């Protein structure tokens, strides 16, 4: 049995421990350790994605872990078309974040890089776990590094934001845990409960619809808070505003995706009937999140907070795609997760740089930055345009096909008026991005703040943003590079739903 997936969990773990040990005089080495280990991780992820280790099916790993009278818990990892994209995205962003941070010096660098690497352990674990117990453990493992990341390296209100983030997501995951228990117990007639994804999926199908939909609600709540969806979104703007740029990138880029990944992997895969039962609620939550998030963006004066609200809106788009429960809907919802990961990483880097280089992120105080910081302006335009869905960039393939899939749903249910929401959301998105761009970059140079020390993008920052821009364009003109992994997965998923 190949151990390639285990190595993907162990490598960042070793990186985290080594980085942690680089205290005191060796502090400078911590970042190189982190970069080296995340680079190895990315290489493995790319080889994995390109199929160098064989087809996905051959990569499952399973070891007996805890066997009691009541539970059979295995250490089980697997990858398929859905998880491979997330694994790739995670390892890419972690490496880029490590490189991006080189331009800035911090106290206690070793802790900083250890936290990033520890987060990678949890993230890769969540995206590859094939057992509920392991999934839950990894889910919680991501939480603690992020808490410390915000409360050690964050902005002035970091303690408040960190504890709010922690409590919101921890309570949500505890509710999810109850759902997991119930899922396990009802998936068997008697004897020990096998907590592997496969066994639970096969076993739960015969349970009563009422029980299924109740369990779905518990699990969905846990994932929805993580995504986050209105009305449980309020931790996100706070966390983002206070988190350091690197933390925001990982939080928005890959951690929020844990929520939508969980909905597809667990709620939809294991409980398709319940998903159909709650379909209207999912659609409603998605639409509210999209519109509310977009309105929230317009109201913000802090660039980073605006981007945080745009994440709520875009993750709403992911949920809308999932809510369609169709092949196209889920495929492009996942693609939107991937696209949003790339774009939002750029967005947060650019916004973080604004605060760092100009001294403030308040939009009313900014203006005419394009003249003094041309590269900065270029990257901001690229990511804003990508995020608002400009054809040719990756964001377009995330948003437009989801709306197409939603259109099918609208026609099938004869609720044509719902299209208004989609149009509204597109208009608002274009509106807040263009307006923010205009106020920040163009027009006469601002006199409200001192710009004499403002400097353009640093070398490492440039390299990272350039790589991301290339990827945004690459997947924009050739989305099939990512879609080819997804389509077999979603067609299988929809086929299985049809059988049930």
């Amino acid at each position, binding site marked *: 049995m190949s151990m390639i997936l285990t190595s993907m969990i162990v490598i960042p773990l070793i990186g985290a421990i080594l980085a942690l040990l680089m205290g005191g005089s060796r502090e400078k080495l911590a970042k190189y350790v982190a970069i080296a280990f995340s680079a190895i991780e990315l290489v493995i992820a790319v080889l994995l994605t390109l199929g160098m280790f064989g087809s996905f099916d051959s990569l499952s790993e399973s070891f007996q872990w*805890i*066997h*009691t*009278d*009541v*539970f059979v818990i295995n250490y089980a990892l697997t990858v398929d078309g859905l998880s491979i994209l997330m694994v790739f995205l995670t390892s890419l962003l972690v490496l880029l974040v490590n490189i991006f941070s080189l331009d800035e010096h911090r106290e206690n660098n070793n802790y900083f890089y250890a936290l990033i690497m520890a987060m990678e352990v949890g993230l890769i674990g969540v995206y590859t776990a094939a057992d509920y*117990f392991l999934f*839950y*453990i990894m889910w*919680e*493992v991501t*939480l*603690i590094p992020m808490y*410390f990341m915000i*409360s*050690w390296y964050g902005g002035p209100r970091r*303690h408040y934001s960190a*504890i709010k983030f*922690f*409590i919101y997501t*921890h*309570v949500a995951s*505890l*509710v999810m*845990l*109850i759902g997991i*228990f*119930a899922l*396990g*117990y*009802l998936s*068997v*007639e*008697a*004897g*020990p*409960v096998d907590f592997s994804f496969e066994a639970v999926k096969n076993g739960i199908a015969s349970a009563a619809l009422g*029980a299924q939909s109740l369990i779905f609600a518990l699990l969905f709540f846990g994932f929805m808070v993580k995504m986050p969806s209105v009305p449980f979104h309020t931790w996100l703007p706070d966390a983002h505003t206070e988190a350091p740029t690197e933390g925001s990138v990982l939080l928005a880029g890959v951690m929020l995706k844990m929520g939508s990944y969980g909905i597809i992997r667990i709620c939809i895969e294991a409980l398709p009937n319940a998903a159909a039962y709650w379909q209207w609620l999912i659609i409603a939550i998605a639409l509210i999140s999209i519109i509310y998030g977009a309105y929230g963006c317009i109201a913000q004066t802090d660039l980073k907070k605006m981007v945080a609200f745009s994440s709520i809106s875009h993750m709403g788009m992911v949920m809308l795609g999932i809510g369609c429960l169709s092949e196209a809907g889920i495929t492009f919802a996942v693609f939107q997760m991937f696209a949003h990961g790339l774009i939002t990483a750029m967005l947060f880097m650019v916004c973080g740089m604004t605060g760092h280089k100009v001294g403030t992120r308040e939009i009313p105080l900014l203006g005419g930055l394009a003249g003094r910081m041309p590269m900065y302006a270029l990257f901001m335009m690229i990511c804003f345009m990508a995020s608002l869905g400009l054809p040719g960039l990756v964001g377009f393939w995330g948003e437009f096909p989801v709306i197409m899939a939603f259109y099918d749903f609208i026609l099938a249910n004869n609720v044509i008026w719902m299209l208004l929401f989609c149009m509204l959301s597109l208009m608002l998105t274009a509106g807040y991005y263009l307006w923010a761009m205009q106020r920040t970059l163009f027009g006469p140079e601002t006199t409200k703040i001192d710009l004499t020390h403002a400097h353009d993008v640093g070398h490492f920052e440039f390299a990272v943003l350039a790589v991301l821009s290339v990827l945004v364009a690459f997947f924009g003109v050739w989305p099939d590079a990512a879609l080819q992994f997804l389509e077999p997965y979603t067609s299988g998923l929809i086929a299985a739903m049809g059988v049930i």
Partner: protein
Amino acid sequence: MVAEIFTSIFGALTPLATMIVLVAGALALPGIQMFGKKHVVSWAFALILTIFALVMDMCLLVDGYTGTYLGVTTTVYTTLMGMLFLIVLFFVVLVSNASTETTRSHAGAYYSLLLGATTGMLFVVSSVDLLTIFVGVELTSISSYALVALKRKDGRASEAAVKYAIIGGLSTALTLYGISMIYGLAGTTTIYELAAYVLTAESFNWAFAIGMVCMIAGYGFKIAAVPFHMWAPDVYEGASAPVSMFLATGSKKMGLAVFIQVFLFMFIMAGTLGTIYGEIAQYTFAILAAITMTLGNVVAIAQNNIKRMLAYSSIAQAGYILIMMAVMTNEAMAAGTFHMFTHVFMKGGAFLIVGALICAGIGEKISDYKGLAKRAPFLAAAMMLFLFSLAGIPPLAGFTSKFFLFASAIGTPGATYDEWVWLAFVAILNSAISLYYYARVVKAMYIEKGSETEKIKVPAVFLFAIVLCLVFVVILGVYPDLIYGYCEMAANTLPHIVG
């Protein structure tokens, strides 16, 4: 096997073997103190005896030894719980000589009392009769009052000891009252005969129910279940940290063991869970559990003294463990016993750190822990892991045991329980609340800046004990089978204990 060595030494007395060793030690220690003068001699003697008893107990456990001598019954359950008490005793004795809080001039009496108290606990878990259980509990309690008072020339300790003794006396009275009512109606104090009485009882008798509730209340004092918890924070605050650890992790487990033996044995053994007495006991315990964990956690938030905070957190943990008494299944009992074990390591570890820091001159206030991460990086990291484990953060031991425990309340393979799901919800919500006050300590240690920056040095034995606890907190988190297997075995052999 190794256990044969012990069985050949003790012969038919093997069920009593660990107790014999401890009693011999307890009796010899004052003499050793008189002739040896040096407190380190008493310490070494007590430590060697403890390790001997612990090793013997472990061998009997691994061998699955069962036997009876004069009504003292040894089963897997007995040796398992015995191991728990002896582990606690081992940690307490280990650090006592290095601690500046424990009195050195009375080393003989101190270790003698510790050994005596543990003998009481061992006696409790090998008894099958209400009266012998009562005697064991009293032996432990009376030794504990003296242990608390032994921190002399400290007003808080004297206050705590008096409070403890008075409330302990009240609980004794209640228990005896309950036992006498039960004896009056059933005509027996032996648990399996009581089970037969419950099974054959033709009509419901209020007096019997009241007797049961009196016993629950009486022993409820011992485990500091709300509303019988008032003494615990004062006593833990007043006593020295090793003694607090002994009370929080050892003596409290004895109270829970009594519940297991009296009520779980009585109801599960006779299959009388469905009878009205069974239901009364179950609901009483469910309410007790819910109130205990909620109040413990909520009040812990307001504490500024770390010992008091840990005391309230112990109350909350007792509430979690009481879930097993409400659910009353074999799985719940296995999970509850397992949580008792993980609690020993995580709460014990936290108390050890507090004790070590007191020796190093750090105060007991949470605000005294500011900037600890810089001054004592290892202690701060260990404390963080213990607290996270108490809060139930994976992959630490506290998570795994809570996972089993809460799971046992939610259902069993093939079904979910409608009666007890609410209890699991309450428990899980409480876990979330508890995170807040644990995180407060972590925040003080890691995030806030302290006024002093010099490094802290603590005695090496403390570090050794803390490392041991830490190792078990991590190992039991990722490999629970190490102990959980025995917990299940103990729970499954429950019905065969007697007869």
